[in-house]
């Protein structure tokens, strides 16, 4: 397998993502496998860089749209799930994350995009769904041995409300877990107000889903083993 073929696969894959053409993207993945690329190589040299370049806005100077984010993440997750069992050696899990949409919030798109990015980067993610009670975040973090809790909000009142991240922070404090579990937040209100994450008691936020794996990895490195 030459580098040129890999580069061509990545270029074609990026074009399919840019055009939000899922069928073409999956076809390119299959062609790469048929041409002898290993499942590991397809994931780490085509699918993940494609997703991160698309979602990270590095593909062009133009605005990268939510539909492109959505598709890049969705395909990455699907292909990763399909190809991981074919890896020669089981990949090293980067860590456990629990993630959900804030109490009172029924918007699941942002969370879904982030989950795709994290799974493609080999994090083990537990999706708690939408409208998640603060207690549930903490319980799930404990039962899943997660070092990071991700809380998504689409609306200002759910991001800043008393049953949102603020309450999760309070529960961690009350249970002596603040040095063991970190909170990351994301969603529309944080994009309009880039210091809001501090006000709601989070340790970090990510502007795009592509940034989430790096931020989560940094948070995991901070906490006690």
């Amino acid at each position, binding site marked *: 397998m030459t580098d040129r073929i890999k580069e061509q696969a990545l270029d074609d894959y990026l074009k399919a993502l*840019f*055009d*939000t*053409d*899922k*069928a073409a993207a999956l076809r390119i993945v299959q062609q790469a496998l048929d041409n002898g690329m290993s499942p590991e190589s397809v994931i780490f040299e085509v699918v993940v860089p494609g997703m991160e370049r698309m979602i990270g806005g590095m593909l062009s100077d133009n*605005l990268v*749209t*939510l*539909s*492109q984010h*959505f*598709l890049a993440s969705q395909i990455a997750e699907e292909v990763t799930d399909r190809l991981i069992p074919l890896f020669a050696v089981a990949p090293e899990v980067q860590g456990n994350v629990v993630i959900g949409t804030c109490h*009172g*919030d*029924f*918007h*699941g*798109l942002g969370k*879904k995009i982030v989950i795709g990015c994290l799974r493609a980067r080999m994090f083990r993610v537990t999706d708690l769904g939408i409208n998640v009670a603060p207690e549930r975040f903490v319980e799930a973090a404990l039962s899943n041995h997660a070092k990071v809790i991700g809380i998504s909000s689409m*609306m*200002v*009142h*759910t991001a*800043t*409300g008393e049953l949102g991240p603020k309450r999760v922070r309070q529960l961690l404090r009350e249970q002596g877990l603040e040095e063991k579990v970190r909170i990351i937040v994301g969603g*529309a*209100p944080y994009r*309009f*107000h880039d210091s*809001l994450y501090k*006000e709601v008691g989070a340790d970090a936020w990510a502007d795009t889903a592509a940034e989430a794996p790096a931020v989560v990895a940094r948070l995991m490195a901070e906490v006690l083993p």
Partner: protein
Amino acid sequence: MITGMDRLAALMSGATPDRVPIICNLLDQGAREMKVSLKEYYSRGDLVAEGQLRMREKYGYDTLLGMFYSGLEAELLGCSRIIYADDGPPNIGHLIINTPEHIRKLSLPDDLNDHPRFRELASCIGILKRESAGRWPVLGVATASFTLPAMLMGIGPWLELFLNGDPGLRDRLLETCSRFCSRQISALREAGADLIVYINPVASATFITLAKFRELALPWVIRDLVQSGPTGVIFFNGGGRINPILADLREHTGIGAYYLNPFDDISEARTILGPQALIAGAINDIRLIDWSPEEIDVEVGKIMNAGKQAGGFLFGTLLMPFRIPEQNIRAMMDAAIKHGSYHPEVM
């Protein structure tokens, strides 16, 4: 007294009003004004109308908003569960489309006034129209056919369907939603709305590429407005950037007013639209929660300067979060009146 309607009429005729008209979209704050819960507030059109009238009187902006919450449109189409909060807009708690069969069976009420929730909304708009007595334009709000499915099936499944799903099913859903949108615009006008705010975030450049906008969304914008016509329609960003789609909208729809996102550049919008169209520039109202009055003054000043240079300009907000303190709403209004004046020497 110069009224909001005078200011708007001046803009529409190409004249310069005394100051930039101000659209301040306060919704849930009306419940606080009326000292009732949000659930009770939105249960009655007369309460919402009274809340809107009091808030306009209190702050002095130029329009009256004849809207309850976005999910009401889903209720008109069969959503049976709306979840209320104490401090923010109600959420849709029941998605009515979960299978292709639900799309095939989706039906519209022949007359929206047959639905009790629409009757409350129409009653609210009727009161606003009557009490305004031609002084303050009453805004009715309709969600575009290309965005409405997100409220019926969730945004993820809708993206999935229109990007990579069955085109026949997608078009069937859009056809139904477009008929609903068209009927709603007519019904809002019959109820007394002077202007229609046409909300289409899923068509914005934040959601889809320009190529997809042209292929999938634009034809449905045109279709939504065939029956009612584009006169008196304001294209509202709904939280997404719209500068990249303005040229197509202007060329193909005949819409004469565009309500930008806070991240859209006002002078760029003017260049794209040419001299005729009206432009509303929006402040990033989430920041109004904790900006100081001085910061608000600076930010409003920037928007007003750009808008006054662009001409044909209105100042606006998105949907103001409930948490914005009253003094910051006043600070925004004071700044908007100060910086929006075309005749500062007479102030």
